[in-house]
């Protein structure tokens, strides 16, 4: 990615917090990231991985200890929060309870020094954008959670920020509403062609919305890429495990293949991402449950412990030696495995991924 197309550049940003117990937490550890103009970038990771801290550093609500943050090529580290052309949709929505919906949205525009006649149509437009036309006179307390969420969105969007930051915006909504808002957010991002940076701990949400996903692991970015690429080619054990379901087994590089847990030797054509690992290297491999070929044979290595029917799929838990692995099979299979069956397993070319620890 060239610098011309970067809406936001994070360069080697670090941030430490001291805990009340006197310890030190490295919330951000030398994090670098390029966010492309007009992209929908998702910062994904478990709670406490530093993703929200990075968002707050971009917004200016938190100051990084070191590193640089640039907005369209301009350093913003020393720009106070109220002067940065970025706006945040807060996890708690943070709507002003003493102001109406319209006044909430107008607040940010008043801060830009716009006149009443300029503000009114912008507020209307923002309300229409989030489909809350006609609710401008209500108070936040008179709205449902989903509606409040939309107001928070409209309030930030009305400012037409260079980057819109969204901090776990959907986490307080119930599942059905969340799904709807996911496509709603995608639509808004397309229509406004603004740059969105969203923080979430929900990997399905990240997959559904992101153009680019950055996976955080303990204050560092473990991997950045398109969701599909990250899913198919996880670089680390953490990423493989965190995104989607994965079987992660200990492995050792042999002369002509890789020994995978109790499964045994697997040919090099099956393994991907192993370039340059000399024989004798110990590490881990990951493979997806849906990417395993199985065949029922009386003396197969895999012993089926449990089969769960989940709609289109069957979740099969099988034991291979000392390892337990998960296999996903189609429910439409004529003779699906049953508990107690023995299976012979094989792997498609490139389907077993060597991952860093």
């Amino acid at each position: 990615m060239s610098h011309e197309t970067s809406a936001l550049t994070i360069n080697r940003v670090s941030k430490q917090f001291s805990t009340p117990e006197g310890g030190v937490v490295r919330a951000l550890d030398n994090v670098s990231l390029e966010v492309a103009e007009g992209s929908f970038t998702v910062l994904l990771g478990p709670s406490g991985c530093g993703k929200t801290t990075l968002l707050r550093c971009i917004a200016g609500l938190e100051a990084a200890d070191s590193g640089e943050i640039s907005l369209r090529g301009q350093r913003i580290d020393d720009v106070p929060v109220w002067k940065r052309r970025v706006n945040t949709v807060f996890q708690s929505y943070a709507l002003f309870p003493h102001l109406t919906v319209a006044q909430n949205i107008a607040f940010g525009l008043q801060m830009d020094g716009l006149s009443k006649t300029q503000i009114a149509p912008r507020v209307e437009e923002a309300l229409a954008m989030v489909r809350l036309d006609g609710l401008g006179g209500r108070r936040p307390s008179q709205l449902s959670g989903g509606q409040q969420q939309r107001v928070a969105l409209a309030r930030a969007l009305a400012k037409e920020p260079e980057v819109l930051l969204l901090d776990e915006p959907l986490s307080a909504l119930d599942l059905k509403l969340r799904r709807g808002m996911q496509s709603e957010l995608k639509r808004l991002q397309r229509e406004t062609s603004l740059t969105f940076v969203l923080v979430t701990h929900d990997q399905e949400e990240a997959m559904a919305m992101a153009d680019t996903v950055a996976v955080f692991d303990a204050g560092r970015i473990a991997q950045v890429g398109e969701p599909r690429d990250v899913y198919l080619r996880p670089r680390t054990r953490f990423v493989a495990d965190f995104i989607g379901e994965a079987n992660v087994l200990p492995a050792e590089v042999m002369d002509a293949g890789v020994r995978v847990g109790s499964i045994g030797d697997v040919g090099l054509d099956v393994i991907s991402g192993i370039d340059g690992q000399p024989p004798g290297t110990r590490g881990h491999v990951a493979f997806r449950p849906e990417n395993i070929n199985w065949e029922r044979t009386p003396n197969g290595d895999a012993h089926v412990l449990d089969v769960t029917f989940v709609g289109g799929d069957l979740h099969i838990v099988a034991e291979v030696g000392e390892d337990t692995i998960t296999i996903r099979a189609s429910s439409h299979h004529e003779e699906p495995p049953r508990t107690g069956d023995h299976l012979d397993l094989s792997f498609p070319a490139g389907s077993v991924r060597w991952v860093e620890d």
Partner: protein
Amino acid sequence: MGRARARAGQGSAWAAAPGLLYLIGLVLAPLVIIVVYSFLSRAKLGVGVKWEFSAQAYADLLFSESLAGGRSFDPTYLQIIFNSFLFALITSAVTLALALPIAVWIATRPPKDRTGLIFLVTIPFWTSLLIRTYAFIIILNDNGPINAFLGALGLVESPIPMLYTPFATVVGLVYTFLPFMILPIYASAERFDFRLAEAAYDLGGGKWTVLRRIVLPSVRPGVIAGMLLVFIPALGSYLAPELLGGGKTSMIANVIAAQFGASRNWPFGAALSVLLLIITLLVLVAFAVLSKRSARVTGRSSWESML
């Protein structure tokens, strides 16, 4: 239908009986006595009352009788009531200006520090108000530490007379009532969601704008409660004007006290008390209206903030 079953946690009406008895016997009854006395006649020697109906005490509030028997309008007591209002208003305004930054500052400290700071605010309650007010005589007099300090710096040639001035009264009143303003505002500010301030900064608001447009409206119930807790007692203050104002700046309570003492006019003292009571009630009603309006906005009433 059987008898109403008590819900869990619901108190029994009998538990309230001792408190109610106390209120009726020792709060309501004296009020009734005051009202009755105000409509009776002055006793011969001035101590006590003569049981004979008279509205003379109320007439005396507005008119004075000359020795010749003629009646003329006399604004003396209206002036005193106006003075009392002014002192109470100045006291409320000054305590508000001092208390607001303190309360917001305490509310923004880490939770473990807040308890200690609030504890410090309540330290004046440890000694009697009388003694603390006497202490101000020492502080403010011509040979007191303030004048000594100013003199030592060479800022003044002769001591500034502070004691027995309206200024001393205000100082005493502000000192007395400051904690009553800090505590309710702190209670409101402590519940303020500072993420709202972050959101306001994020939307482009500077520090002053955020304070004025986001923080202040949220602590308004606490401010109204504090004004109430300061204004009404300040209106009927006795000690500060008596000891520090030196009789030059009489407030209504001092005049009432005089009627039961040196002036020996109990019915008139009672009438003044009834007047003070009515004024206080009117102020309460005004605050209630104000508080209702702010409750509609913040969803929390000032009455709640006082607790």
